[in-house]
């Protein structure tokens, strides 16, 4: 299929995509804000807050993963029923333009909105906590390995949710299974991070090593690390990339 790309039209598609984006993730994001405050205040009142507290990062990660993946899963909500699918598929724009516009929102704009919203909440909490509890969380170091790891898992899972959302109507069971697997996997990682077992300072600079499952430890030999890397490549990176690419073809081949 000849897929034309016109920048002016792409801007129009971006505008339309923004106007028709799913509302539910925003509602959940807004409802998460009071919960974050509640958690922070309870933590601040507790009197046993450790000097190196992971709560801000964990809350940010949970917020981003939950809302971000939900947003990705609902990105193609128009295709959910015949009436809206009609309208979406017949919008005069190429599949490439439609797919890029959706991807732009899913991969960059919405995560940025979550980040901005979280920072606003964090700053507001800081204003109160210093005054009331003489306590302030150390700001999240956005360049730290922890944040990189959280982002890494977020972007690894994002194409899964994105693709699952596209195929929802046709492969509901598959989506369910994929989602359960991803959530289970993420849950283990969250627990690992929360329990402080996640090794982050093993001395290996490569991201691949940094995200190796915790049970291998930092003393794994080179052969084991090689196998781990191959495992990640085949089990995570390649499927994730393929799923991302598949979303384009799902829209291109989507019929009523």
């Amino acid at each position, binding site marked *: 299929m000849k897929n034309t790309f016109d920048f002016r039209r792409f801007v129009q598609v971006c505008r339309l995509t923004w106007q028709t984006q799913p509302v539910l993730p925003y509602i959940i994001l807004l409802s998460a804000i009071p919960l974050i405050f509640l958690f922070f205040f309870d933590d601040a009142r507790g009197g046993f807050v450790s000097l190196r507290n992971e709560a801000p990062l964990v809350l940010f990660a949970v917020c981003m993963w939950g809302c971000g993946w939900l947003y990705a899963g609902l990105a193609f909500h128009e295709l959910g029923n015949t*009436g809206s699918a009609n309208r979406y598929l017949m919008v005069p724009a190429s599949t490439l333009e439609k797919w890029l516009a959706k991807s732009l929102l899913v991969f960059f704009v919405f995560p940025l909105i979550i980040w901005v919203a979280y920072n606003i909440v964090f700053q507001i909490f800081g204003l109160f906590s210093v005054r009331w509890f003489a306590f302030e969380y150390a700001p999240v170091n956005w360049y730290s390995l922890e944040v990189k790891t959280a982002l890494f898992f977020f972007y690894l899972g994002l194409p899964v949710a994105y693709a699952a959302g596209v195929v929802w109507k046709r492969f509901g069971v598959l989506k369910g299974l994929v989602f359960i697997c991803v959530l289970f996997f993420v849950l283990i990682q969250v627990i690992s991070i929360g329990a402080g077992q996640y090794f982050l300072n093993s001395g290996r600079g490569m991201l691949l090593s940094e995200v190796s499952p915790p049970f291998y430890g930092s003393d794994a030999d080179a052969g084991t690390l090689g196998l781990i890397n191959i495992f990640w490549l085949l089990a995570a990176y390649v499927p994730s990339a393929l799923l991302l690419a598949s979303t384009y073809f799902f829209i291109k081949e989507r019929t009523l």
Partner: protein
Amino acid sequence: MIVIQGMSFRYKQNRPVLDSLSLQMEPGGVYGVLGANGVGKTTLLHLLGGLLFPKSGTVTVDGHTPQHRQPDFLEQVFYVPVDFELPNISVEAYQKRYAPFYPNFSTTSWAHALQTFDLQPSMKLQALSFGQKKKVLLSFAIASGCRVLLFDEPTDGLDIPSKDSFRRLLSARIDDQRLALIATHHVHDVAMLLDHLIVLKEHSLLLQAPIADLAGSVRTLVSTHLPPENTLLYSERVPGGYHCLVRNTDEQEGALDLELLFKALQIHPDIAQNIQRYEKHV
């Protein structure tokens, strides 16, 4: 403008919906597609709009292959489905949202259509009735400036004055560059608009003819007595006599009731061949 050659389509159940269909439609006409339930009228519109892909054969619309859904094709085709969903915004916002995608969109036609249908730009779409929503969509289709307009049951949900408004708006919009295809069961609502008739039966084409040619070869009449057998093609009892489809042997100017013609074709499909023979004869 629309060329369909040997097109077949079937859904997953493997039951053919359209089988080796061949059709040709030229700009400047309003084509009516008639057929019983499940014969493939909506499927035909979906195939022309690129919303379904044919299993075999070819479809071209204005030189484009619909299933490629190229922007320059989509800019020229507007489809008004029977089931649709409109966003929760105002009528005006709907126009602002979607009109930029149609280079020939006419804001004058849009305003005129809204006024004709008694709709206000500030109205919220979700607060409108089904018929009013349909009128918004019909107004947009007419104002879109698209060369191919596809309508699936366009008069469904419209009140009597609105049906008339729709006919007037559409007939004013169709020029020698444009084509409208209307799939409907409510043939009386659009009969005055149509200048070509397409009848589908058993998933294939039974009849395609200009209305003028049909009217030249057959006509309908209400009579207290049955006409002579050599001219009578089909009749049904009505209060006070018979509603008959007869050969127009003397080329009289007479009414042609498309609904009766359709019923006749459903019961006696061979009438279609006879009609075409009469046309040649005339």
